[in-house]
């Protein structure tokens, strides 16, 4: 059971584009409703989220939009069941006043979220929300945020994260983005572009124009950069791209194809494979000194490296034993140990941000599966399986795994999907076209 112990009220949450101020409310004297998100089969918590109130008439639309973003996020997590507003009895007109709890109890709302959006004299929006425990008749948390009007979606995500954290005791994953490869055209003539969007599919933006084939984008944990592989003139190579400025540079000066890049947890290094004849070895490049270090040296394909969150170990795949399997080595390349021993092939390992699990793709019996195992290879669990599932990426709180699923058929193509760590609540992630190689950003706020 994850019981929130940290005081949520005692600090000011500062983020780049949205400033937050705590709403003055009394601390709850005892623990209120909470959600245990470690269980496989939980009943989603019934929550009522009436449209946020408009401070004046002109904010009605954005107020409703923000509360709709909150509601959609909570619903998609699988942990909450937003109630139909047609069942609501009380109309919230002043969110500063305690609601008529009896009106919300009778429709079985466990939690109630109220809020208000006001346009300030300087043009900014002020968004306030309060989370109420309906059956205890208490406010659980409340905050207000100030932001530019075109940032309203982020405010919705930040409020949803605050609600998620208050009710589960863990950080949320809503104020995050996904970088992925957008795919258009027929199967034998695909155009691939790097694209970035909010985790719910909104605010999509294309980072490359499709002229060059691009693959496997990954976020920096600490800057507005991604690393990815691109074809172009000459050898295909690993690049860095600043997603704000568009500035692009090649990572390293290697005598061959480099691919499968991934940042270190401190953002200072990039791991990648260098193809050398029929073999691939893993290298690390320090982005400040530009120094490169060879980490593996075997007559095999060593690729898909991923650091542990403490930076002390690296998980990767290698066919040094005959078929693709997953290995863990020290960050300096020593002491490589195979950890995957189940039936089938194991590939694309990614270390959980919590450090406790490694997600992987597994090929068995003509199917492609997504699973997790502990870093010592024990306690393998398969989360999804089918014709083709590949390339897991973790939500920053380590609770959700996103991956791509290729759909067979002449008009088929890859789509993004997400599944909870429990294997439940599998959902498609909306994208405008076919999409592959997703990577989840850190929490932005």
């Amino acid at each position, binding site marked *: 059971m994850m019981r929130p112990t940290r005081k949520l009220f005692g600090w000011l949450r500062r983020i780049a584009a949205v400033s937050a101020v705590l709403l003055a409310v009394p601390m709850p004297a005892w623990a209120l409703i909470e959600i245990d998100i470690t269980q496989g089969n939980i009943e989603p918590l019934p929550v009522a989220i009436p449209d946020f109130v408009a401070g004046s008439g002109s904010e009605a639309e954005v107020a409703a939009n923000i509360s709709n973003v909150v509601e959609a996020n909570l619903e998609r997590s699988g942990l909450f069941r937003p109630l139909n507003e047609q069942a609501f009895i009380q109309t919230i007109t002043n969110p500063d006043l305690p609601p008529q709890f009896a009106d919300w109890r009778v429709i079985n709302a466990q939690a109630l979220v109220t809020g208000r959006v006001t346009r300030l004299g300087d043009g900014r929006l002020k968004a306030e929300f309060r989370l109420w425990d309906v059956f205890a008749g208490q406010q659980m948390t409340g905050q207000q945020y100030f932001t530019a009007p075109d940032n309203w979606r982020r405010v919705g995500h930040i409020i949803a994260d605050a609600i998620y954290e208050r009710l589960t005791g863990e950080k949320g994953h809503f104020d995050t983005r996904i970088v992925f490869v957008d795919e258009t055209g027929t199967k034998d003539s695909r155009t691939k572009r790097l694209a970035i969007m909010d985790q719910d599919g909104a605010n999509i933006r294309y980072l490359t124009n499709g002229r060059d084939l691009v693959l496997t984008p990954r976020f920096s944990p600490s800057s507005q950069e991604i690393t990815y592989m691109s074809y172009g003139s000459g050898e*295909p190579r690993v690049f860095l791209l600043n997603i704000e400025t568009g500035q692009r540079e090649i990572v390293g000066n290697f005598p061959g194809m480099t691919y*499968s890049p991934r940042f270190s947890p401190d953002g200072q290094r990039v791991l990648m494979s260098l193809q050398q004849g*029929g073999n691939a070895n893993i290298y690390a490049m320090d982005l400040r000194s530009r120094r490169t270090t060879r980490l593996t040296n075997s007559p095999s394909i060593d690729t898909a490296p991923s650091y542990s969150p403490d930076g002390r170990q690296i998980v990767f795949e290698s066919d040094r034993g005959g078929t693709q399997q997953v290995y863990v080595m020290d960050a300096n390349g020593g002491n490589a140990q195979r950890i995957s021993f189940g039936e089938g092939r194991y590939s694309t390992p990614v270390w959980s941000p919590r450090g406790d699990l490694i997600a992987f793709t597994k090929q068995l019996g003509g199917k492609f599966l997504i699973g997790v195992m502990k870093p010592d290879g024990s306690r393998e669990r398969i989360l999804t399986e089918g014709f*083709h599932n590949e390339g897991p990426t973790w939500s920053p709180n380590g609770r959700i795994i996103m991956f791509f699923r290729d759909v067979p058929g002449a008009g088929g193509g890859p789509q993004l999907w997400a599944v909870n760590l429990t294997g439940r609540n599998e959902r498609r992630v909306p994208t405008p076209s076919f999409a592959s190689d997703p990577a989840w950003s850190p929490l932005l706020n």
Partner: protein
Amino acid sequence: MSGLFPSKSLLNLAVVLLVAVSLAACAGRAKQADVAGQAVPGSQQDFVVNVGDRVFFSVDSSVLSATSQDTLRKQAAWLAQYPSYQVMIEGHADERGTREYNLGLSARRGDAVKNYLISQGVPSNRLKMIAYGKERPVAVCDNESCWNQNRRGVTVLSGGAGS
């Protein structure tokens, strides 16, 4: 590459080789019928139609079959006869593998083709190699009859008097 049952790999290998040979034969016949007598000796079309520009691989393998070696010997002989061409070897994998590994596997295939051509006397400075992983399939159905066409090494010509 993968996607088949390891326990049946020998059987599959045999099937794959048969299919690959018969497909190559079909393609050759079809093209020869279409362009009967039109491929100018020494042209890229001549290379594709009368020599064969590609070899095929079995699942998760970069081993050159006897048929592939035969094709590559003919390629080397043709390239010796027409020395003005530069060569880009493309390594490819089928869709039944993961992206990163397939880049490595397709490079391994391209490297095998390149090394074989060098062993047959093609100067290495005429040869370049690029690995496409599973990114450039030529056949798009969702079964082995397409996948075995995509596990390939293609010898692409540039320059040359006939181009």
